[in-house]
């Protein structure tokens, strides 16, 4: 069940792999060029930051505009509260990430490579800094490590670009998107660190190899962060195409009885436990089906927890993490969060529940970035999966002593 690709090599207890060991194990970094972009296309690799967009197509969109002056941002901001996989990857395999970033840089025609690492992720940032220092001078000269602020939106690609340009990590209105005009107005590739690490291995072993790692029609491996009601929470690498049940078994099994699984993190959605088990974790397949693996979060809610309370708290976090730039996001998410919190506290105002449905439709698609869309998609999943609970709670008028 477990397939090691990114985490092949020394065990996690050995800490970050050194540059010497990395080169000894995997050989030198291959060439990053147009042929690599074709290989990535064929491999089926899709982005692992949340959007599951084709990596080959994304690189080509920058390459076709770059004229040798593009910029690459390796995105290790990881602002999703339930995700640990990016920081774990950077802590253990920093050189795979750096290889991937430099390969991207060569392939798209970039002369600046930025490693954008969550400043709150101490071990990962330290491992990346040490790894960069181990690199030959030619690699170091074109690569800069910079700390991403610890906010949810800092990893959104226009926010990452804006942080480099102006020091403020808030999203920008599009178009233009970063692949058109990004850092200093230049075509910019913003790619999640896990995606880059996969690219570093695909560059060495090819697209057929990557395909062979997955099950059924899924390609490659995926990093998941498993949390909640499981015996052994943590980051695991599995074959793409495996089921949620298999993942939960790898995480030591569910402790207690599961009510629902949150797939994809705060921007993902709830799936009821009886439907989640057989779900196939394939980023490309889920995206094609209108779902999302998001950033690979699998979090189990057990039956003793209050799903409304948990959902209300997640929504409140997302409302608080609005960059407060766009009215519909800032005010809309605040209204949605307040109503959800009232329902969860069993002192809903009359009309709160229908209002939630109305507002979710009203807010969708009306931010500069997709923060409001992600928050609304999360709430919609809660309203669907916990429909009976919402209905009962919205009707409960017992007011708490104030």
């Amino acid at each position, binding site marked *: 069940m477990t397939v090691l690709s990114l985490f092949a090599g020394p065990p996690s207890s050995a800490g970050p792999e050194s540059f010497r060991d990395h080169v000894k194990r995997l050989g030198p970094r291959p060439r990053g060029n147009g042929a690599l972009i074709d290989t990535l296309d064929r491999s089926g690799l899709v982005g*692992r*930051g949340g*959007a599951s*967009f084709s990596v080959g197509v994304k690189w080509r969109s920058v390459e076709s505009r770059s004229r040798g002056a593009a910029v690459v941002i390796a995105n290790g901001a990881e602002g999703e509260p339930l995700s640990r996989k990016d920081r774990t990857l950077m802590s253990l395999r920093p050189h795979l990430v750096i290889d991937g970033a430099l390969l991207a840089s060569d392939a798209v025609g970039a002369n600046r490579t930025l490693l954008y690492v969550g400043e709150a992720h101490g071990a990962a940032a330290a491992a990346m800094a040490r790894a960069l220092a181990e690199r030959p001078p030619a690699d170091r000269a074109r690569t800069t490590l910079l700390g991403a602020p610890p906010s949810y939106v800092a990893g959104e690609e226009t926010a990452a670009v804006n942080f480099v340009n102006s020091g403020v990590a808030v999203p920008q209105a599009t178009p233009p998107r970063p692949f058109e005009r990004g850092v200093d107005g230049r075509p910019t590739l*913003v790619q999640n660190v896990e995606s880059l690490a996969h690219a570093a291995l695909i560059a060495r072993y090819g697209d057929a190899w990557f395909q062979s790692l997955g099950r059924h029609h899924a390609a490659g491996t995926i990093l998941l962060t498993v949390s909640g009601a499981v015996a052994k929470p943590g980051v695991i690498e599995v074959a793409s195409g495996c089921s949620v049940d298999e993942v939960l078994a790898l995480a030591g099994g569910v402790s207690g009885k599961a009510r629902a699984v949150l797939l994809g993190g705060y921007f993902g959605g709830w799936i009821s436990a009886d439907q989640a088990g057989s779900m196939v974790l394939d980023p490309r397949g889920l995206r094609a089906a209108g779902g999302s693996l998001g950033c690979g979060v699998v979090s189990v809610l057990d039956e003793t927890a209050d799903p409304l309370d948990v959902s209300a708290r997640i929504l409140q976090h997302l409302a608080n993490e609005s960059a407060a*730039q766009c*009215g519909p996001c800032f005010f809309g998410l605040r*209204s949605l969060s307040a109503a959800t919190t009232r329902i969860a506290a069993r002192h809903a105002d009359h009309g709160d529940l229908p209002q939630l449905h109305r507002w979710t439709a009203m807010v969708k698609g009306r*931010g500069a970035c997709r923060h409001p869309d992600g928050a609304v998609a999360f709430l919609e999943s809660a309203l669907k999966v916990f429909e009976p609970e919402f209905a009962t709670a919205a009707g409960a008028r017992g007011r708490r002593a104030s």
Partner: protein
Amino acid sequence: MAQTELWIDRTKCDGSRLCAELFPERITLDDWGYPIIAPGPIPGSLMPHAQKAVDSCPVLALALRRVERRPPPSPPGAKAS
């Protein structure tokens, strides 16, 4: 074929509501006073109203943009992918 559409920079819009008054055919307000713009190209007959709405925006958040009917596929705007 190029068409004209309304485009809004949501990061600039501060909810002055003027656009909705000047171009009610396509712009309504949400519960918080921010414009909801009906999708689709602006026909020539409505262009004067559209232009007035654009010109009235105190923070220059609203613009008319020429768009191709079938935009080429491009990377999505989502969290780091």
